[in-house]
C-alpha cells in the first residue's frame, strides 16, 4: 500500500537525520544555558533570556535570514569560519540542522530550566558537605535529577525540528538530497497545483514519523522517571 518513492524515502531520512543532529548537538548547550538561567544572577541575564526566545517570537523566515547573514559562507561569522577552518554549513544538511536547532533551542531551554529550578537545592548543599566540588555536584546530583526535564526538552525540541521549515528554506534553500526534508518537500508540492496527492502522502508520512518519534520518546521518559522514583 505504502510504497515510498525514492524522493519520499530520502525526505524521511533527511528529516530524521537533520532533527536528531539538531537536538543532539544543541543539548549540552541547552543544559548549560538552562542551568545558567536557573541558578545564576548576573547583569544582562534578562537580555540573555530574551535573546534565547527570539526564534519563538520572530517569524521563522526572519530567523533564517539572520542565520544567512551570520553563518552563510560569506556571513559575519561564517565567512571567518570558512577562511580559517574551511568549514561551512551553507547549503548542506548541517545548515538545515543548525536552522532546526536554533528554532528548537528556546523550547529545550525552557523545559530544562523549569526542571532545574524544581530541584531541591538543599540536596546540592548536602552533596557539598560530603566533599563534592561544584562541577561534581552538577553531574552527580543536579543533572540526574533534571532527567525528566531533559527528556521533555528533547521531545519538544525534536518535534519542533521535525516540523521546521521557514528558517530552513531561507537559510539553506532546497538542495535535493541535502535539505529536502519532509516539511520542505511538502511545501514545494503544495505550491504546485495538481500535486495534491503527493502532498497528502507527505502529510501522512510526516504524521507517521512524528507519532513514531513521540512514542519512542514517551517510553524513554517513563524509564527515566522510574529511575528517579520518589522524587
Amino acid at each position, binding site marked *: 500500500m505504502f510504497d515510498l518513492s525514492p524522493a519520499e524515502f530520502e525526505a524521511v531520512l533527511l528529516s530524521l537525520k537533520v532533527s536528531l543532529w539538531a537536538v543532539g548537538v544543541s543539548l549540552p548547550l541547552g543544559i548549560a544555558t538552562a542551568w545558567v538561567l536557573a541558578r545564576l544572577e548576573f547583569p544582562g541575564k534578562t537580555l540573555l533570556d530574551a535573546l534565547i526566545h527570539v526564534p519563538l517570537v520572530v517569524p521563522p523566515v526572519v530567523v533564517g535570514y539572520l542565520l544567512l547573514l551570520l553563518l552563510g559562507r560569506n556571513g559575519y561569522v561564517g565567512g571567518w569560519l570558512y577562511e580559517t577552518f574551511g568549514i561551512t554549513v551553507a547549503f548542506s544538511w548541517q545548515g538545515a540542522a543548525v536552522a532546526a536547532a536554533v528554532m528548537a533551542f528556546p523550547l529545550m531551554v525552557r523545559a530544562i530550566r523549569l526542571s532545574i529550578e524544581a530541584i531541591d537545592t*538543599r540536596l546540592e548543599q*548536602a552533596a557539598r*558537605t560530603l*566533599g563534592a566540588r561544584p562541577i561534581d555536584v552538577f553531574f552527580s546530583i543536579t543533572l540526574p535529577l533534571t532527567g525528566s526535564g531533559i527528556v521533555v526538552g528533547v521531545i519538544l525540541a525534536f518535534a519542533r525540528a521535525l516540523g521546521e521549515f521557514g528558517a530552513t528554506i531561507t537559510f539553506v534553500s532546497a538542495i535535493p538530497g541535502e535539505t529536502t526534508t519532509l516539511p520542505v518537500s511538502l511545501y514545494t508540492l503544495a505550491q504546485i497545483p495538481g500535486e495534491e496527492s503527493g502532498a497528502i502522502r507527505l502529510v501522512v508520512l510526516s504524521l507517521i514519523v512524528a507519532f513514531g518519534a513521540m512514542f519512542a520518546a514517551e517510553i524513554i521518559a517513563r524509564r527515566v522517571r522510574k529511575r*528517579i*522514583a520518589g*522524587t
Partner: protein
Amino acid sequence: MSLSVDIRKNLGAFTVDARFACAGGITALFGKSGAGKTSIVQMMAGLIRPQNGRIEIGGETVFDSAKNIDIPVHQRRVGYVFQDARLFPHMSVRRNLDYGRRRRGDGTGSSPAFDDVIDVLGIGTLLDRRTHLLSGGERQRVAIGRALLSAPRILLMDEPLASLDAGRKAEIIPFIARIQDQFRLPIVYVSHSVDEVLQLADTMVLLADGGVAAVGPVEDVMNRPDLVRITGTGDAGTVIPARVTDTDAEFGIATLTFAGGDFRVPAAGLETGRRLRLRVRARDVSLALKKPEDVSVLNIFEGTVTSVSNSGRPQTDVSIDVGGAIIWSQITRKSLSELEIAPGKKVFAMVKAVAIDDPVAHP
C-alpha cells in the same frame, strides 16, 4: 580536637553574635527555636558566610574575615547531618553511603570502615533499598552513616531527631552515643530538646537571641537558676550525675549513688556501674526540720539551706546543699515562715520523684 567559633551575622530578625570554644565529645548547641542555632552550624560548615569573625576546626582556620580566608564547603571536612536527612532520591542507600566515601573517605585514611559504620547504625539490611521506601528513623540513620563515611573531622548534627516521633528518637539516640564512642569523633549537636541534650551531651552552649548565654558542662549550665528561663525547663530543678551501684530484683529498685548519698528509684533494666543523669524537680521535694520516720518516701537527705528565693509569690524556691550536690525544693511562703527556713539552716529534703533520663552510656 578543638573547635573555636567567633562569628557575627545579621539575619534580619536578629543578629547572631556567638563566641565559644570546645574540645571533643558531644557539644550541644541548645536554645529555643529561632535562637540562631542552625545558622551557626551552617556557618561552621561553610554553607552560610559570616559577616565577620573566625572559625577554627581541628587547628585549621576555615574562616577568617580579617585574613580573607574562607575555605569552600567541600574542603572543610565537616560531616553534616540535616534535620530532613536529605538523602539523594535517585540513589540507593548504598550509593548514598558511598557518596561521601568516594569523594573524601578513601584517600585520607581517617574514614571509619564501611562495615563498622553500618554495624553501629544497624543499617546493613537497608543497603539496596531505594531511599523513598525508608522510614523516618531509617533515613536519619542512613544520613548519619553517610556523613560518617565522608571522613569528617567533626560531625555537625542539626536537630537530627526533630522530625521523628518519640519512639524513633529513643531508637536513634543510643546510636548517636555509640558513634561518639566508637569513632571518637567530636560532635556538635543542635537541639531545642532538653531530653536529647541531657542524654547525649557533655558540653553545652546555651544560645538565646543569637548570642551565647552560657558555655559549660551540661549539668552546670542546666542547674543555673538564672538560666531556667532560657533552658525552658519550666520548673526549677536539678540535674544530678549519678551511678548505678546496686539493683534489687525483688522490688525493682535501683540504687543510684551521687555526691550527697544514694537515691533509691524504681527502675528496671539498669546494669551496675552505669552512669546517668537524674532530674529532680523542685516541686517534688519537701522539707522537714527533723528526720521523718515511717514515711513512704525512700529518698531523704540531710543538707544545709544555701539560698532562698523570695519574690513575693506564694511559692518560693529553696536550694539545699546535700554533700556537694544542690537540690531545689519548692514550698509555700507560709511554710518558709513557719519553719523559719533561711540560709544556713539544717533541713531534711524528701525527694518524692526522680526522673531518670533514659540512660545512655557515658564514659
